[in-house]
């Protein structure tokens, strides 16, 4: 467009009209790229929401696949237990060290127990356990579904007049909703005992102070907030991981497609967990 009008004068400076035209072209291209990027984001969000609504619909429509559900509970829950125990214990221990030195400055070491418990129950338990399960089970789930997609196993289900949603997505979402709160609770308990080991056994706080203060400061509302959070994180992780795996053919082909879907699932889930945690924390405060 108007390329012929772009000219240079004898001193090598661009003609003013040419500069103006080039600027307009750059702006036009920029807006075009921005527009297509925005459209692809909106399209992708729409597809993801339709995918979730379809999965939620099939949760309530029989026949229910209880065998598959139990297998997925084992996949999300039992197989994540080691990593949850390990990270829970060390999170509690680190919290105990950091909070003890901070609280000592204010002469409030006695509040170490409730500080650890509230941090874990309201925030760190649900968030960190969800991030851990995303790394362990979410990525595996996306890779599994991605491979099923590229090796035509999903098409095979369709060709048998069996709904892939019912077999591949619904059991995962229900299993995640069941296991995430349980894993977060285990994370909390282990974290509190990790904090106890450091605070009481190592730093010399009395055991009675650690637990009795906790009892008086932690309310049922705090526990509920943690549970609501982990429930919603379960939906996010299973939803995003299933969607990315199921639609591996959108992100690429073959092994590369599976690899990029898996990366995308972990990154998207993790970011959504943190964003949703902020919004939910603000609402439920």
């Amino acid at each position, binding site marked *: 467009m108007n390329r012929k009008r772009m000219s240079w004068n004898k001193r090598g400076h661009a003609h003013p009209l040419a500069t103006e035209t080039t600027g307009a072209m750059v702006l036009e291209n920029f807006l075009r790229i921005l527009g297509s990027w925005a459209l692809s984001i909106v399209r992708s969000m729409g597809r993801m929401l339709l995918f979730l609504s379809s999965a939620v619909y099939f949760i309530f429509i029989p026949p229910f696949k209880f065998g598959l559900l139990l297998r997925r509970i084992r996949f999300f829950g039992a197989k994540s237990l080691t990593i949850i125990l390990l990270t829970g214990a060390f999170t509690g221990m680190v919290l105990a060290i950091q909070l003890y030195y901070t609280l000592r400055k204010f002469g409030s070491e006695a509040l170490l127990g409730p500080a650890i418990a509230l941090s874990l129950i309201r925030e760190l338990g649900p968030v960190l356990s969800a991030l851990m399960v995303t790394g362990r089970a979410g990525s595996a789930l996306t890779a599994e579904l991605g491979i099923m997609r590229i090796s035509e196993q999903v098409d095979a289900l369709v*060709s048998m007049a069996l709904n892939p949603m019912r077999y591949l997505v619904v059991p995962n979402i229900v299993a995640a909703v069941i296991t995430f709160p349980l894993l977060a609770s285990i994370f909390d308990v282990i974290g509190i005992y990790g904090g106890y080991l450091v605070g009481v056994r190592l730093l010399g706080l009395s055991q009675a102070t650690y637990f009795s203060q906790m009892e008086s400061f932690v309310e049922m509302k705090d526990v509920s907030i943690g549970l609501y959070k982990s429930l919603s994180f379960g939906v996010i992780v299973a939803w995003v991981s299933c969607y990315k795996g199921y639609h591996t053919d959108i992100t690429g082909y073959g092994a590369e497609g599976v690899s990029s879907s898996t990366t995308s699932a972990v990154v998207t889930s993790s970011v959504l967990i943190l964003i949703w945690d902020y919004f939910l924390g603000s609402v439920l405060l």
Partner: protein
Amino acid sequence: MIEIISLEKAFGRQKVLRGVNLTIGNGEVMAIIGESGGGKSVLLKHLIGILKPDSGRILVDGEDITALSPGEFDRIRNKFGVVFQEGALFDSMTVFENIVFPLKEKTRLGREEIRARGVRGLEDVGLRDMGDKYPSEISGGMKKRVALARALIAKPSVVLFDEPTTGLDPVIMNSIHGLIRQTHQKYGFTGIIISHEIPEIFTISDKVAMLHDGSIVEAGTPGEIRSSSNPVVRRFVTTGCEDYSKSIP
């Protein structure tokens, strides 16, 4: 009877099917031959509703399946069995579990009946002792046999084969072709085979259709196709060569 009428499909700007017309009679084995990437598998996916056409109709026993909702399509899919290119076996299940999967999920048959039919299915494809193996533990040829057994287990009236012998050596290829012939004689299904195994495919087909440039350029008995005067068909049938001239600048 399956009638494909003026079927068109494009992916973006690329037109893959440009008005396909084809009729497949009941109990017939129809081979669809043509160049790789010529739209044969795309055509097959329209028959089981994995893809929707841009225009045109597909009549299965007189019913237009392109107008059906996804829920209604399942009724049509129950008439079909599909043997996918790489088998598409569920890799988390054993060979036996793969074969009986459609029965377990779609019928109310008792455990013993399912077991008996599964064993019969394994025997049909000569894999009686392989039931406990996982797909990753068996060869490519065996996978295709298992896929055939799984496709036949629910006794479909139409079986679709998507390149059932691709990637196999000539001996295994002939044994798969033999197996298709035997099972067709035993069960009498209508078969649609996507293939470019020339001339082997002629021995098991009643009819052959050549898909070229998005449409059927010739259809007839294997003898008619062999003696076709159409230059595209002649080149493909006599030399098995694909026409790459268009891709040469």
